[in-house]
Every structure is written in C-alpha cells, then in structure tokens.
C-alpha cells in the first residue's frame, strides 16, 4: 500500500522490555542507524542492576531512550513520543513518561493474563480504555517473528528471541532509517552461528516488510540530517570516549598507558575497552581490589608510565589512602570516578553527582587534588586529555568525574585529528639538580611548583620518597614544624596555580541582560542548556555557564558569580557545588537539586528557572 510520508524535526523513542529482551542492543542499533543518517542524537540507557531480574516483573524492566533530530540535540529528551513495550511490565513502568497523544507499540502476545497479573494489571490495558489518550499499535511481535522464521533450523525459543530484531526492522521502516549498518553488524556478531544470523536477518527484514504491508501504520516519518560542522563523525558513549581519551593522552605524552582497575558498575566498560587495545601498548591490570588497582597505577606512574585507575564512588572510598600518598609523592595519576547513586552500594546502574565532595575533601590531612568533570559523553575524551595534561605537568593525581548517564549515554562525536590534539610534553629528570651534584627530588619548577619526575633506571638520581613528610628540596624525612607548614602550603599553592593554565569560565548570555545565571558542572550540561534554550525562545533571559574545572576553579569564577543577581546551581546531589561556591566566594547561590538516579528533565528545570527570573524581576 502507498504510505504517506511526514517530515518531523525531532523524535524521542523509548524501547522497554525485559532485561533479557535485548532492548539495549536494539536501542544501540537504532541509534547507529540514526547517526549514520546524520541526525544529531542523544541516548539514555536505563537498566536494572540485576543481570536477569525475574522475567516479566517491574524491577526487571530494561529500557533505552533515543532522541534524534534535524537540529542540535542536548538531552535524551524529557518525554518519549513513542514507547515500544515488549511486555506489560515495560508498558506499566514507562507509560507515565510518554507524551500525551504519543504512540505506543506493544507486543500483544505478551499481554497474557499471567503477565498482566504479575505486574498488577487487573484488566488488560489494551482493552480497558486506559490507553485512550495514545495512538496504540497492537502488533503480535512474538508470533509474527516465529511465523517469519518457520522452516529455520532453530528452536522456538531462539525464534522468539529474535523478536527484538523484528521490532527494530519495524522501527527502521517507520523512521526511514538506513539498514546496511545493522545487517553488517549482525553478520559480524553471528559469524560463527549462521543459523542464528539467518534468523536475525530474516526477523529484521520481516519487521520492515510488516510495516510496509500492514494498515496499522499509515504514515512513515523522516527526520532530516542535522547541520553539523564539517568532519568525520561517529556515535560514542562516555566510557568509550574516556578510554579513547586516555589512549590519546598517553600517545600525546609519549608515555605507555597503564590501567590498574577493579570491576565496578558503571566504570567496568572502560577497563573492558582498554583491555582490547594491547597493540597500542596499553597494559591493563585487573587487580584484587580497588586499593591494589590504584596502587599498581601509582607504581606504574612512579616507573614512568601514565598511571590510571577507573572506578565509581565506593571504589574511590577504598582508594583514598593511596590517592593521599600520590598527593605527597607528587606523582602523576589519573583517577576516573564514573559516579553512581550512593551512599554505599546505592544505585549501581543509576546516575548521580554526589561524589564531588568525596573527591574534593575525602582524604586525611590537607590533600588537594585537581578535579575535572565531563559535560557530555563525547566530552569525556577531551577531559581525559586535560587530566593527563595537569597530572603530568604538575605531578599530581587528578580526578576525572563522569557518571552513569555519561558512561552509557551516547551522542555523535566529531573524530579529532590526532595531530591536532594538545601536545603534552613530558620530560623526565636526567641530571642531578643540586648545587653539589646531588639530586634533590623535591626541588621545584618555579612556575608550576612541580617536582622532577625521576624514574628508576636513571643513573645518579637514586632517591627515596615516601608518605612521611619530606623536607622541601631534598625530600628527606622531616618532622620540622616550619617545613611541614611550608609543604602543606606549597602543595595547596601548586594546585591553585593550575588555574593559570586553564581558560576562563565562559558565560552564554545571548541577550546580554540576564540577571540570573545558571551554573552547572558535569552531565547536567544537556538539561541545563536545553532549559535555557527553551526559556530564551519564550523571551525569558537567563545566562548559562558550565564548569569543567572544579578544582581549581577558573580564575574569573568569583567575578562571574558577582555579576548576577541570582545564581542557580542545578545538581544531582543535595548542593555540593553550591557548598563549595558559597564557601569560596561568599555568594548565596541557590541550588536546584534532584537525586532520583536519572538526569533531570529540561522541562522541570525550565519551570524552576522561569519562577526565579520572575522573582528577581519583581524584587
């Protein structure tokens, strides 16, 4: 039948099903198709901590949201336009988020009495009118898939498992996505199992054909490519971008990359990714615990490598003592904290920004550590390089903060030209530096206050360092009160001086007369920028700034804060940056805080900011 084609500017789709239904894979493939088409996009995977929660239950629901558009996209989208529910649990857990009037595609085969009862549906929502406000497409996904695979040499269960590919085929047709990438992906993935490959390809094509022939879908949609600066792009999630950034940083430093790590959600994928790249000379060491992970990384740094450890909040707690040692040894070290909901085990697969104070202050003694935070999945790449710059130039451990949302969320990434990345010059000490031909391991660079990095194997520079306080210059053990006071101040001053090497905080205030500044850090960038954009379209004037460097702050931060009548700091915590800003600049910043394990929506933030702007105008 002839279908009508409709152009859309943007679409938000959420796929929801059981943990075993392959929703993440389906979402990834749909995203890849959209990326290749040239849409801008942003994704939000959301899955349970349990590997296989009981089938068909609400806690077992795994979902994947993708927002794609013909223009610049900042967030995965507040409310889905389309919900694909593979079972009643997927429908029940996600329906409340759906835009009113949105489309619901359901697998009717799964809406059995038993499955409905399992999630507390007393009547069938497909029949009782509770979906009257939506466009419901009832598709017997499972039985259509099984029928399409009749004659294939596979079990019924294997046939049923291909239903996600049927759904992907249908969606790919509905949104006019290019399918070559997915077919190539399947061929590579199932190269060793031709019968499963056949089944998946057949199901995928059957889904596409079903869309073409059924009367249930009368319209197909197109979303044109978004204008983007020239370049070569790919889609990338934060953990991959972080791993690539670390590799690029090591290459630019001319140092071998050493990762000491212990598996922890949501950081493990950085370990997995780096473990694949041994041909680049990357050494990965899966340690016996978090402590040994950072210990081995520090040992590698001492030996002249770029030592890195990756973890999440609970791991940072365990690594704390070694990070303090790195502070006093004044050796380069990168600690990546992919934050998750806390405290304690908290919400392992959900996102949060509540480790800021831990990484700032969670050590004994005066132990300052530079802190950086990535604002988007692709930005993890750039932040990793900046962390390596600071760590090697200032001989200090550096924290990189990302979070579960950045780690797993993805967006298009303009692939950098390696030669255009910052050149990170690292020089090891080679000669004695003392007046009498001796080596002084704590004789500092007058500009950066960095001490020499003298790696074992260098003749004439044999020296001893340790966790006990050292005399400045010689590095010998010193319990002298004046020396300790001096060393505490020097270590603090060294970190403060990093501010001289970082760009000033930029403010986006297109109207030039905003009285309210929204200041964020980390992954809240997307929702904040989207909220500000929406407000400006309404004629509400707000200024926006976003911090990448949290310690030290850019030099002009205090001046920026003082320019506005009101500063709003949205955070996925109870006000940790707010606390730091108030303490440092004596500015009464106002927090906007949500700690739900999910990024906040641009709508709720815009609503709040609208009120604040009104208040300030009326004051």
């Amino acid at each position, binding site marked *: 039948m002839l279908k009508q084609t409709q152009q859309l500017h943007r679409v938000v789709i959420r796929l929801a099903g059981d943990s075993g239904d392959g929703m993440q894979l389906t979402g990834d493939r749909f995203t890849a198709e959209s*990326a*290749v088409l*040239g849409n801008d996009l942003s994704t939000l995977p959301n899955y349970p901590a349990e590997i296989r929660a009981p089938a068909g239950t609400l806690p077992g629901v795994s979902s994947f949201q993708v927002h794609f558009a013909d223009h610049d996209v900042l967030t995965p989208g507040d409310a889905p336009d389309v919900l694909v529910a593979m079972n009643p649990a997927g429908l029940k857990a996600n329906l409340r988020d759906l835009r009113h009037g949105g489309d619901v595609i359901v697998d009717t085969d799964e809406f059995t009495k038993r499955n409905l009862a399992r999630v507390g549906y007393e009547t069938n929502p497909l029949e009782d009118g509770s979906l009257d406000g939506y466009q419901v497409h009832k598709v017997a996904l499972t039985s259509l898939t099984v029928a399409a695979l009749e004659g294939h040499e596979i079990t019924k269960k294997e046939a049923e498992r291909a239903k996600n590919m049927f759904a992907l085929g249908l969606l790919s047709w509905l949104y006019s996505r290019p399918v070559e990438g997915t077919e190539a*992906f399947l061929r590579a993935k199932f190269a060793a199992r031709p019968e499963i490959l056949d089944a998946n390809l057949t199901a995928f094509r059957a889904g596409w054909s079903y869309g073409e022939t059924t009367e249930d879908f009368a319209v197909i949609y197109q979303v044109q490519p978004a204008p983007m600066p*020239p*370049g*070569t*792009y*790919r*889609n990338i999630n934060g953990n991959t971008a972080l791993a*690539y950034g670390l*590799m690029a940083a090591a290459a630019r430093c001319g140092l*071998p990359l*050493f990762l*000491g790590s212990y598996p922890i959600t949501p950081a493990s994928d950085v370990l997995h990714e780096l473990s694949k*790249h041994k*041909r*680049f*000379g990357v*050494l990965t*060491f899966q*340690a*016996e*615990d978090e*402590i*040994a*992970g950072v*210990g*081995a*990384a*520090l*040992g*590698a*740094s*001492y*030996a*002249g490598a770029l*030592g890195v450890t990756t973890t999440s909040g609970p791991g940072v707690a365990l690594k704390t*003592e*070694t990070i*303090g*040692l790195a502070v006093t*040894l004044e050796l380069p070290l990168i600690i990546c904290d992919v934050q998750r909901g806390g405290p304690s085990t908290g919400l392992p697969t959900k996102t949060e920004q509540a480790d800021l104070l831990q990484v700032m202050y969670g050590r004994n003694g005066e132990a300052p550590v530079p802190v950086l935070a990535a604002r988007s999945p692709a930005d993890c790449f750039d932040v990793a390089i900046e962390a390596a710059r600071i760590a090697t130039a200032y001989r200090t451990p550096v924290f990189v903060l990302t979070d579960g949302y950045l780690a797993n969320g993805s967006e298009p990434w303009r*692939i*950098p*030209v*390696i030669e255009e990345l910052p050149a990170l010059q690292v020089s090891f000490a080679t000669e004695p530096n003392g007046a009498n031909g001796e080596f002084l391991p704590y004789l500092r660079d007058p500009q950066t206050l960095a001490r020499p990095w003298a790696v*074992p*194997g260098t*003749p004439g*520079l*044999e*020296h*001893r*360092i*340790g*966790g*006990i306080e050292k005399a400045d210059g010689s590095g*010998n*053990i010193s319990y002298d009160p004046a020396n300790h006071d001096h060393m505490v101040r020097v270590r603090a001053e060294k970190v403060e001086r990093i501010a001289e090497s970082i760009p000033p905080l930029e403010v986006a205030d297109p109207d030039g007369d905003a009285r309210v500044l929204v200041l964020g850090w980390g992954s809240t960038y997307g929702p904040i920028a989207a909220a500000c954009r929406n407000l400006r379209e309404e004629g509400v004037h707000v200024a926006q700034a976003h911090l990448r460097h949290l310690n030290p702050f850019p030099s002009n931060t205090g001046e920026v804060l003082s320019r506005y009548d009101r500063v709003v700091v949205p955070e996925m915590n109870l006000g940790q940056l707010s606390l730091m800003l108030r303490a440092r600049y004596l500015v009464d910043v106002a927090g906007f805080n949500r700690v739900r394990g999910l990024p906040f929506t641009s709508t709720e933030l815009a609503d709040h900011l609208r009120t604040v702007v009104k208040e300030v105008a009326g004051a």
Partner: protein
Amino acid sequence: MTGTTISAVEAGLGPSGLYGVPLVGEGHPLGKKDFTSDQEVRWCPGCGDYAVLAAVQSFLPELGLRRENIVFVSGIGCSSRFPYYLDTYGMHSIHGRAPAIASGIAVSRPDLSVWVVTGDGDALSIGGNHIAHALRRNINITILLFNNRIYGLTKGQYSPTSEAGKITKSTPMGSLDTPFNPVSFAIGSEATFVARALDSDRKQLTAVLRAAAEHRGASFVEIYQNCPIFNDGAFDPLKSPDTRDEQMIRLEHGQPIRWGEQGRHGLGRDPRSGQLVSVEVADVGEEALVVHDDHNEDPAYAFALSRLSDPPIGRTPVGVFRSVRRPTYDDMAREQVAHAQSTQGPGDLAQLFAGKDSWTVD
C-alpha cells in the same frame, strides 16, 4: 594463544629473576658503600633490622646490577623504613600496599629488580590480600617479610604471627587468635619461591636472598627478626648454642633432611600414611630419609615441611622450601602486548576512533 604466550616466555626470557636488568659491567664493581644512603639509621639499638640491612647492603653488589635499576618498595612499620637506608630507588608507601605498588612497577618495567620489604603486620594483617595475590600471580618481585611476631612501631600490640595467648597492651588477658605460619600462607597462595631465614645467620640469609633474587617470579622470604624492645628473644631457641642444633632444620636441595647433634634426627615418611615424620637416623638408616627437593611441583610437600614448625617457637625448618618454575604475570602481560603488536600491527588511533559506523559531513 596461551600456548604461544607461555612458550615465548620460556624460550625468550630465561629463568633468572634478574634477566633484563642492566649490569654494572666489568671494571666498575660496586661495594657495600655504594648501596648505603646518607640517611641516619633510626631503628632501636639491638634491632634485628640492622643485621638484615647490613646483609642486604653487602649482598646486593654481588648481583652485579646497576643500582639505579633496583627499586625497594615498603609499606608501614619498623622494617618498612628499610628503603631509606639503601642508595637505590625506593618508595616508603602505605600500610600493606607495597605488593600492589611493586606490581605496577614490575609490570611496567622489565629492566628493574623490584623488592618489597614488609613486616608481619604489614604483610599479613592489613596487606594480606595484596601479598596473596602478588604470590598467586607470580609477579617478578622479591618479598622480604621481616617477622618479629609483634607490632613494634605502634608500641607492642600482638601481630598475626604472635603466638596464641600473647600478653600485650591490647591483649592483657592473652591474645585469642591462631597465628599465621607465613611460609604455609605463602605456599597456600600458590607461591613459586618460598624460603625462611634468620636475621643473625648472615651466611644462610645471604644464600636465601641470592636464590630469591635469581628466581623469576614472586619470591617470598620470611626473615625471623628479633625485636629487642617488645618481643625480645622470640627466636632464641634458634639462636642459642645450647638449643639451635636440636631446633633448626636446615633445608638444602638434594640433601637428606636431618638435624640435631651429628644430624641424629631425620625426616622420614610414615610407610602407611606417607606423612612426613621425624625419625632417628640411627634407627632407620640414612637411606630412609627424605631428600629435600625444593623443585617438587606438588605444593603439598613444601606445605608439609612448613608444618614441621612447633609453635610457639621450637623445631623450625629454614632455607628454601619451594622453588618451582611458572611463567610470571608481568612477562606474560608484556608478551600479550608484543603478540598483539606482531599479529595485528601497531595500533592506529585514527582508525580505532573512526570505528565501523562513521560518517562524514562536508
């Protein structure tokens, strides 16, 4: 894959723990003075650590290594001050973590001889996890565990090797826990080289240190070390001329195990259970004695030897319990990198970043 890795290690890297570490070369011999730093040694008078330090400083030059390629890493405790007194590279780290830090150094740098100096508290209480895993992985490091069976630096609490019932400041009615036998612990942790020595016996200590340094893999040496302040005389039965011959069993590879005056006691096997038992040589004849084989692959043998120790301190075997070959973690980790590079070619970042699904905007 694994096959190539292991055989390449065996074929290319040789058995010595010192393979790959640059040598001083002829004409530039180093002496004890070259390994002595300018720092004042600050242990208590009479501490066993002095004897061990002197033995190490005298012995290191004999290895012929360039001293800039030697690294000592320690944790926390009296013995962990050790690196400050050696004129090599050194790191005095944090409590219990030296094996982890040393692992990172050893994996990164095959040209370094890496040593860990630790104590009974550092290694077996707070750092028990790390030492077990360093041994299991067989990382090419040499671990010297100074066992004085007490906490010295914190002023006299019982340690994980103190005998049960130990009266200390923290255990006024006697300690309740069963102590570790460090040699048993190491063997149970899949160690490939395990030895025990005595601080006061320079000759035997030096021989053990040499064997440990030359072993490729994690070498574990327990050194009985006297703390004159908080646990004086802990090892006297092994030191006093009146008792030591009866108490100390010197293990020598290829020699029948015997001890006592004129070697009158020996180690035999119970014919029915196969268990090691002490026998009188006069009764059974020398041919019935167990001939010590530290290359015995079966850890049960070395473990059984380690259990001959009579608590709290009585009959005690010293020497090398176990010395077997197994590929080291660090060699294999580097071999995987080399293998990946030789089969796939060196990495190209631009190609990696582009991935499989890239697109171009003009």
